[in-house]
């Protein structure tokens, strides 16, 4: 046996290092999730131990040899109430704790930086506000809250980063959000966990967490030259949005400056916050989202711009803090994509802007 055991030992060591039994805790939320997880594991173990011990003890004590004649017992109200009440209390604790955690994971802090992720069969397209595009990788800085705004172009996907303990369904036709704050630089797995068709198991990638300095370098080195907002500005111009949304007193559409995040009253009397989801709906299904005081004349852009285009427009609207930019879209033709002599370094085509081919 002596000559075998070192081999087995090495084997075990190698396995334990190569094949972890517990995922890394790489986000601020991860320890909180794990605390609840281990609480539940502990409760489960106690419960399981109770059941197994009861079975073993009774089997030893009351088997036929030791206890040939059974005593008939009807039951016990006391015991029934004990094993109704104790599990109930424990489960309610888990419910409350879990609900609180759910609240933490799906409520982004107000200062979170926003990154857009579009899921499609079978890849993740990541769009940073600065114009950096990535496929199946996501670069983020450590120590900063990052909010992802997720949408799918086709079927349900699910964005999951086990090391961060977060996951969110990516739904066609609707934004969902998730946030996290990565704590440890490194490379982590990113999975699509909702079955989405043939290459579902290849729809995964990496999340690369960098220290802020490295992240700044990465941002600078991988920009495409035009930020999302600039793209959105061009789209705004080429779709001629400023014809109505021009912030003049007689404008036919509401002023978009500073509209993001504000409270609006709709023509139905409903009060809503103009978040990403609302703005997206207002572009694609405008007739249901008319601001009070305006006529329902806005045409729908469903079928004219794709999800990337909507994202660019959103980013433009979010960053609108003065009339100046809107006026510019009215007066400059430079921004139009079919203008060959524009100042942009990259060649702009309608598709790259986010317009759907007619």
């Amino acid at each position, binding site marked *: 046996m002596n000559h075998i055991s070192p081999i087995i030992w090495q084997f075990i060591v190698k396995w334990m290092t190569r094949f972890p039994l517990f995922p890394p805790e790489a986000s601020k939320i991860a320890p909180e999730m794990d605390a609840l997880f281990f609480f539940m594991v502990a409760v489960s173990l106690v419960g399981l131990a109770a059941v197994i011990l009861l079975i073993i003890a009774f089997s030893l004590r009351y088997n036929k040899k030791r206890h040939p004649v059974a005593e008939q017992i009807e039951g016990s109200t006391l015991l029934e109430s004990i094993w109704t009440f104790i599990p109930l209390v424990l489960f309610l604790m888990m419910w409350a704790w879990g609900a609180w955690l759910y609240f933490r994971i799906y409520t982004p802090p107000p200062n979170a930086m926003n990154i857009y992720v579009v899921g499609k069969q079978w890849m993740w397209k990541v769009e940073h506000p600065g114009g950096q595009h990535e496929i199946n990788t996501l670069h983020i800085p450590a120590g900063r809250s990052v909010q992802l705004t997720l949408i799918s172009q086709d079927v349900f996907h699910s964005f999951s980063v086990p090391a961060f303990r977060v996951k969110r369904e990516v739904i066609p036709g609707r934004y969902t959000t998730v946030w996290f704050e990565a704590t440890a630089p490194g490379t982590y797995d990113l999975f699509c966990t909702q079955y989405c068709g043939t290459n579902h198991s290849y729809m995964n990638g990496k999340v690369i967490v960098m220290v802020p300095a490295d992240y700044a370098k990465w941002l600078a080195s991988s920009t495409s030259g035009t930020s999302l907002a600039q793209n959105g500005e061009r789209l705004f111009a080429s779709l001629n949005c400023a014809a109505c949304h021009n912030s003049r007193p007689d404008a036919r559409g509401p002023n978009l400056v500073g509209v993001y995040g504000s409270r609006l009253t709709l023509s139905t009397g409903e009060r809503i916050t103009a978040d990403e989801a609302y703005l997206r709906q207002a572009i*694609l*299904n*405008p*007739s*249901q989202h008319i601001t009070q005081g305006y006529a*329902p004349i*806005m*045409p*729908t852009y*469903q079928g004219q711009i794709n999800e990337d285009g909507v994202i660019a427009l959103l980013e433009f609207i979010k960053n609108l803090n003065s009339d100046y930019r809107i006026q510019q879209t009215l007066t400059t033709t430079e921004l139009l994509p079919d203008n060959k002599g524009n100042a942009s370094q990259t060649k702009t085509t309608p598709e790259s802007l986010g317009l759907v081919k007619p």
Partner: protein
Amino acid sequence: MENSPAVAELRADRPSYLRHHFQSVEQQADASNFAMWLFLLTELMFFGGLFTAYLIYRNWYFAAFVAGSHQLNVIWGTLNTVVLILSSFTMAMGVWCAETARKSGLVLCLILTFILGLCFLGIKSVEYTEKFEKHHVPGQHYSLSSFLYPDTDEAATAAGDKPLPLDMARHTEVYFSLYFAMTGMHALHMIIGIGILVFMIVRARAGAYTVGHVTFVENFGLYWHFVDIVWIYLFALLYLISRH
């Protein structure tokens, strides 16, 4: 094996239609009546899914549902409601005839029910044809013109519809999806019912239901009335509530 159950089956007090595993006629009638009710509960849940979908989308796309509803013909709808209520009445009378062993009355009631059922389906097919011609059947050939340009459309003009914005007009397809799913499922139930009616008419003429064993007629009556109830709600939800 002298007292084997086969002997028990041959006891004189057991009518021929009492199946061997029941103790009494009452028990058998009770059981099949309860069975029918449970089956109707499954039907209720089946249509319940559709009603849930209807309520959700009506809340979401109210304008589209109003405009879609205006495309339905209230006169045909009311007529169909009356036809179905009458058929329910004749069916109920049929049950009474069977219970009181009136053979010719039963046959007459069943035939009337059958004819009224066919009337309903006839009217429904007229309505469907209208929808088909106007391209209001969801799918590839769905047309929005009645909603975008209500002036060109008789029904929309009559209801005084204003043109819907394109995005809302597109959602009328959801309305018609539900319209066809709901009325289609209802019509399917009618067709099945009419099939069973034919079978029952033949049996009733042979006198099968007027010898005391009326469970089948009673249960079919329950089914027919249930279909009637579904229509009462469909009529209110699809035709009426967006009318004024």
